[in-house]
């Protein structure tokens, strides 16, 4: 009834090519933005910021990054944790070497450094595909973690190999360090996520995105119609690693404040982000958000319900929580193999025809 093309006339090409062609979608998009920027910062407290929103926003950036590589360009990667570590350590080295430069620039530079590393590890993708590429990126994961553990220069020779983020401000407000307010932390991550998601959405709609998708769907056919696999694959690795690097930098500097590579950026992190992308939906920006939300919020939600709400022992709750999350993942993937994004797409299709489904 509200959700339809009818009556929504486009008279110019830009209008016709806009991201949300349906008015209801546009309104909903602006409403979400208004709530995210205008309402939540006023009500957020430390618990909601640190346990829910900040990890969600950061994981969403990482999931978008991996989705570009795996979902749009079809290159399976298990190196996400390692690339996040590159972002985190790059950010740490920059923060401690150039304390007078703004943290925002450091975060973006950390993304740039990760992009270079990503391209380097993306080179094998020109020769190998599928599972074999997954193994090559897995090697990147283990190599990078080993490197940051082994070479003391990366952690400024600290006794324990931990990196700690010093206090930094943006526009006079702390965004890293213990004195950061919940709202500042949240807004800093939100602004970066918003900008990056906007870039990702438009990249995937344009020439580059179409090249990526052509490579994903059939690389030989893509090559025949004039897509250069070298630039397409490496650009996907670069853009994807940039996003993941920014996520890693924020994860360390804003969210955790101290990190240790083996524990925080281990292979589990790679799988977690991959699961987010698969559950959310491959090849969908919305799917990245949905997957990140699902895997960040559900455990916290279950813990609160089981331990605080129902008073269960913490170990029992932790085990049941793993079983519920695992079970739900299986159920979701059986009912909808294309992820949460496909559910959303189907809902929209149904709404479009409603109330006359035939």
């Amino acid at each position: 009834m509200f959700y339809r093309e009818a009556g929504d006339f486009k008279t110019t090409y830009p209008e016709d090519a806009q991201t949300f062609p349906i008015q209801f979608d546009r309104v909903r998009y602006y409403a979400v933005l208004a709530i995210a920027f205008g309402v939540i910062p006023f009500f957020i407290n430390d618990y909601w910021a640190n346990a829910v929103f900040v990890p969600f926003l950061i994981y969403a950036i990482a999931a978008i990054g991996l989705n570009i590589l795996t979902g749009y360009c079809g290159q399976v990667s298990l190196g996400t944790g390692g690339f996040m570590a590159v972002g985190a350590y790059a950010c740490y080295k920059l923060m401690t070497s150039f304390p007078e430069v703004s943290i925002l620039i450091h975060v973006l530079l950390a993304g740039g450094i990760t992009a270079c590393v990503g391209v380097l590890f993306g080179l094998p993708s020109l020769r190998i595909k599928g599972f074999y590429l997954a193994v090559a990126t897995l090697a990147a994961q283990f190599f990078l973690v080993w490197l940051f553990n082994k070479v003391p220069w990366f952690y400024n020779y600290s006794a324990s190999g931990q990196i700690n983020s010093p206090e930094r401000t943006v526009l006079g407000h702390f965004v890293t360090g213990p004195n950061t307010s919940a709202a500042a932390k949240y807004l800093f991550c939100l602004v970066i996520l918003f900008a990056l998601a906007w870039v990702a959405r438009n990249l995937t709609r344009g020439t580059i995105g179409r090249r990526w998708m052509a490579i994903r769907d059939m690389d030989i056919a893509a090559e025949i119609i004039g897509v250069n696999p070298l630039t397409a694959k490496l650009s996907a690795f670069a853009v994807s690693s940039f996003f993941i690097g920014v996520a890693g930098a924020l994860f360390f500097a804003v969210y955790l404040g101290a990190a240790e590579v083996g524990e925080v950026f281990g292979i589990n992190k790679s799988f977690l982000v991959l699961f987010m992308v698969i559950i959310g939906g491959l090849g969908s920006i919305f799917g990245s958000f949905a997957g990140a939300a699902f895997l960040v919020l559900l455990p916290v939600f279950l813990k609160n319900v089981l331990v605080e709400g129902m008073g269960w022992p913490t170990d029992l709750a932790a085990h049941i929580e793993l079983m519920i999350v695992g079970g739900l993942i299986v159920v979701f993937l059986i009912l909808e193999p294309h992820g949460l994004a496909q559910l959303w797409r189907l809902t929209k299709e149904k709404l479009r025809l409603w109330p006359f489904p035939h």
Partner: protein
Amino acid sequence: MKTTFATLAVAAMIAVAAPASADLVVPNLSYRTGPFAAGGIPYADGFTDYFTLLNERDGGIGGEKVVVPECETAYNTEKGVECYEATKGQGALVYNPLSTGITYQLIPKVSADGISLYTPGYGRTSAANGKVFEWVFNYPANYWDGASVAVKHLLDENGGSLEGKTIALVYHNSAYGKEPIRTLTELSKKHGFKLTEIPVDSPGQEQKSQWLQIRREKPDYVLFWGWGVMNQVAVQEAGNIRFPMENMIGVWWSGSENDVTAAGAGANGYKSLAMHGTGMDYPVYADLKQYVQDAGKAAGAGDQVGSVLYSRGMYAAMVISEAIRKAQELAGTSAVNAAQVRDGFEALEITEERMAELGLPNFGQPFAASCEDHGGPGAGMIQQWDASAGKWNLITDFIAPDDEVLDALVLEDSAAYAAEAGLTERCN
């Protein structure tokens, strides 16, 4: 997704609404799941049981009941952050996360929020310098003390000289395992032994290549910094390569019953550090049995009583309760807040008489904290596993660490932290 948020909001409201009373809140960030649960469960049980005992027998501390909300961290820093934020709003007085990684994360946070962090025998060693770390306490002993005590024990065994000997450090490749390296490097220069560092990646279920290296290089001694599942595997592997067990010394986190029973007779003679006595020969266990276990109020499954890590959890709870008592005395009120508890920690003095009163005679070393000294004397004992009797025997008295080496290192590392965090020294 909207419904998820709505339900989440409901759950959070339940969470916020529950703790409203003015009790003393001491959160227990425990881990009863994951690869480190073998160490986390007994510690958490001992910690909670001791406060249950105080509540049941004495009606709390100074008439105030103690509430111990438990939060599962699985030894994971992200969950640790969540747990900290979830419990801090309930009026938490002190944190004891039993994880060096989480400790590193919490040090800046507790300093900003004004809550004490008590990390006995783990955490950031240089927190012993109270001039820099206002809110962190790690008495009675820390990792560097432990490393030094182990080396002193080896010196004693070798007639005062380790010249030309090789010592291998097998360690958990994390902040925890890396802590002693700096001290051991200094000590190797001082005593002329050769130090080999052999890292084991977390969680440490796979150590074949590390022990193969030890078999090849044949170090004279192995110092061992492991935790959780890594301990059992290491003791087993050491037995497999026929390494003389009496030449292997674990830190106090690698010296519980869980770590050696799996290897059976092969573990006989394995040594570890101890910062307190173990076993059931203390009067406090009679009270625990009467008021906690027999009353059906024991934490967890109740099957850990008297084990090494259970006693350590109980010891930590005992020190925290004494600090709260001291804070009540100083503040003149029983409903103390986090800042007053910090003052209590700083003014705390545990004497042998006090420990005997508490039912723990000759259990730990007496110590007194001050504004400068948050680290205590740092002495440790050596215990040895007797596989046929199935118990740990203390084979030395308390050995004092080499403060000459350690103090300089503590000053250096805490000064680095102060510079990084932009702190000025207190207590002047």
